[in-house]
């Protein structure tokens, strides 16, 4: 089974899932951008492009870590070292309905050539670190402008930017 086969299997399984929220994490062994690799051959192969399309087509969010990008190295030193962003968490974009904050951080390396990643969910109550996801259909709401205006006017007592208060 190659990587594309596995992605297709995940699509099939996820199409039958019971709950809208999904969290997929692990070693995908693929990058989606050239910036995800330092040194070595710099080219996105067919698998990488398929992986990028998988993320987009399935409305997944690549949870960027707060303290870095690279999660794997080839155990070499100096000029021979190649590091890549191979491990990650992908969240369904409807996770925003859960409230709270999802954050990921890369932990210190221990023995393996992969850095562990911690995914943390802080229950609703502190929304300061929630990533912004703007959906164009928000604008289709007939009262969109008035709604935003009302929220901003009524949230003057809160500290922070208008977007935070929203």
């Amino acid at each position, binding site marked *: 089974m*190659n*990587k594309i086969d*596995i992605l297709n299997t*995940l699509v099939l399984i*996820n199409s039958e899932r019971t709950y809208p929220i999904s*969290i997929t*994490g692990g*070693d*995908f*062994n693929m990058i989606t951008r050239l910036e995800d690799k330092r040194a070595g051959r710099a080219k996105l192969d067919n698998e990488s492009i398929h992986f990028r399309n998988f993320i987009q087509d399935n409305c997944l969010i690549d949870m960027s870590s707060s303290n870095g990008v690279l999660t794997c190295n080839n155990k070499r030193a100096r000029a021979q070292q190649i590091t890549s962003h191979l491990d990650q968490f992908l969240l369904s974009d409807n996770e925003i309905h859960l409230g709270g904050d999802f954050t990921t951080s890369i932990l210190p390396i221990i023995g393996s050539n992969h850095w562990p990643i911690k995914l943390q969910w802080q229950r609703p109550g502190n929304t300061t670190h929630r990533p912004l996801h703007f959906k164009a259909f928000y604008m289709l709401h007939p009262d969109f402008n008035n709604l935003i205006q009302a929220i901003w006017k009524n949230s003057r007592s809160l500290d922070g930017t208008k977007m935070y208060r929203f």
Partner: protein
Amino acid sequence: MLAKAWPGNKATTLDDFGASGGVAIIWDEGAITLDDIQVCNHFIQATFHITGTNVHGHLTNVYFP
């Protein structure tokens, strides 16, 4: 090893593939419930419920070759 590192927790695993790979999900049953666990060739998938909340979802742990 799992019992020593995280005593009392539950685990489901997928063996490695030669020199690399292998997948494990280890969880605290007091904090989260995992059901419908499916161990496939390159991933483990389960439904989860976070204790004390209405949060349900699907968790997938993958290893791509």
